């Protein structure tokens, strides 16, 4: 069996950590889409709001420390009305999507090459792992210095931060293609392109999309980090400006918008999984989609 093994570093730490991540994150947003699951979700939300109010009234917390939900809501409506929220969100969304696209494309190309060549893997694995040990937050300032405070530096931060999980998942996915199916394709004279399209891609897709789920939320973090370091637009910028002005309600608005963005992206990936991975085992599928009644 050629090169089934990843070097220990590539395997033990990251993959298992990500597998755990994936499990933790698996059910949540999708279950919220189901009517049945909606009721407890709504209840939890209402409870949260209630506790929030309770904290303010009983604890006597000042609004400039913790504004009440209705104050945040009001601030949200104002930011929406003057167009600033939409503008900043759009900037951040662009950074996230471009960064995700760039990082994922690079990671998949690189990961595929790494998975196919043991020599290349042995040679590059130390660099790949070392690159992951560099905290992205720490090099974000460098990127801003080199590429300016505009879109480019944020896109690069996002790309860097999503690169590693998608790379690892690409390698693991491609390596997980059963050797017997490879032999089958070989015995049927499949071309390289056919093997990729008809075997490697579908076989690696579950693991690959798992990487995208993690990447999608990481990309949002990357954009915010980039904007913190140096920007004049974006939700991260809005957040730091609001903090500077003690506009805590606006800080909350920015944070909630970021959460919504990350969850939507995550949900999109989950939708893609639903659309393409119907063939997976029933048990796995129902766990993933929280929808045991619907076959296929």
């Amino acid at each position: 069996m050629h090169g089934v093994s990843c070097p220990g570093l590539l395997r033990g730490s990251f993959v298992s950590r990500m597998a755990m991540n994936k499990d933790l994150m698996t059910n949540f947003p999708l279950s919220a889409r189901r009517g049945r699951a909606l009721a407890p979700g709504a209840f939890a939300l209402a409870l949260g709001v209630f506790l929030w109010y309770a904290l303010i009234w009983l604890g006597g917390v000042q609004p400039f420390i913790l504004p009440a939900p209705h104050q945040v809501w009001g601030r949200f409506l104002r930011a929406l009305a003057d167009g600033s929220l939409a503008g900043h969100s759009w900037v951040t969304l662009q950074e996230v999507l471009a960064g995700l696209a760039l990082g994922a494309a690079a990671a998949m190309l690189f990961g595929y090459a790494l998975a196919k060549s043991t020599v290349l893997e042995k040679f590059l694995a130390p660099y790949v792992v070392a690159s992951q040990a560099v905290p992205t937050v720490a090099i974000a300032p460098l990127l801003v210095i080199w590429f300016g405070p505009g879109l480019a530096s944020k896109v690069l931060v996002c790309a860097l931060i999503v690169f590693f999980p998608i790379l690892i998942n690409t390698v693991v996915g491609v390596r997980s293609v059963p050797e017997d199916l490879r032999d089958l394709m070989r015995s049927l004279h499949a071309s390289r392109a056919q093997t990729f399209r008809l075997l490697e891609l579908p076989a690696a897709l579950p693991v690959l999309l798992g990487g995208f789920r993690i990447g999608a939320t990481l990309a949002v973090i990357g954009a915010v980090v980039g904007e913190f370091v140096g920007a004049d637009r974006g939700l991260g910028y809005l957040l730091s400006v609001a903090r500077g002005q003690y506009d805590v309600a606006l800080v909350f608005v920015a944070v909630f918008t970021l959460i919504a963005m990350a969850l939507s992206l995550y949900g999109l990936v989950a939708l893609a999984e639903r659309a393409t991975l119907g063939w997976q085992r029933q048990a796995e599928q129902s766990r993933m989609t929280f929808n045991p009644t619907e076959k296929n």
Partner: protein
Amino acid sequence: MTGKALLEVIRLSTTFRNGNGGLHVLDGLDFSVAEYQFVALLGPSGSGKSTLLRTLAGLLPPSRGRVVFKGQRVDGPPRGVGYVFQNANLMPWRTVEENITLPLELAGAANGAAAAKSREMVELVGLQGFEEALPRDLSGGMAQRVAIARALAHDPDLLLMDEPFGALDAITRERMGLELLRIWEARRKTVLMVTHDIAEALMLADRALVFSERPARVSMELTVDLPRPRLDELRYTPEFAALSRRLRDAIR
């Protein structure tokens, strides 16, 4: 019974590299398979049966010797060979029909032709109504039938089968054997089938080869001159018992 040789194995040896001097698996095999013959291959576990099949299919280059298929030396998978793997080896994301037509799709066949072939194959292996099913919804026997249909889809001259019924219970196994026989008779294929089951070998094959322990040589060759069609009653005849004893002794 002896037609022209479709497949020749000439002084074939295979050694796998490992830490200590290499694992000698196939040791100078010499035999040939005539056209339309059904050959069963028996032997102890780990003796190299799968290794031989992979070599014949051009998936594994031999260390020494050669394989000649249709008069041409095999180096790389030759055309005209269907391979049934030790497990069904289906693509779980493709439906039954899509799995069966994979060889046609790879060969660039038109959709219409592939659909027609698929209908024919589905009928041949008795899977009508399951065309759109996914492998996860099939029983072991059904999956194996899909694998056989897939191996037959591009109409190969030689069918290499690696314990195609290994994972099945005895009853299903017998039924599948009879179906295979029916297909073999209808299609006139040459078959080389690995099996652990002596009765199965006798019910199906014209000829049985027995491998020795590793490194494998052909320790016995047996012509199974039982009349066809072979019906179930055959199992209880003295001829069958005698052949079966000879095979068992050879394997031991």
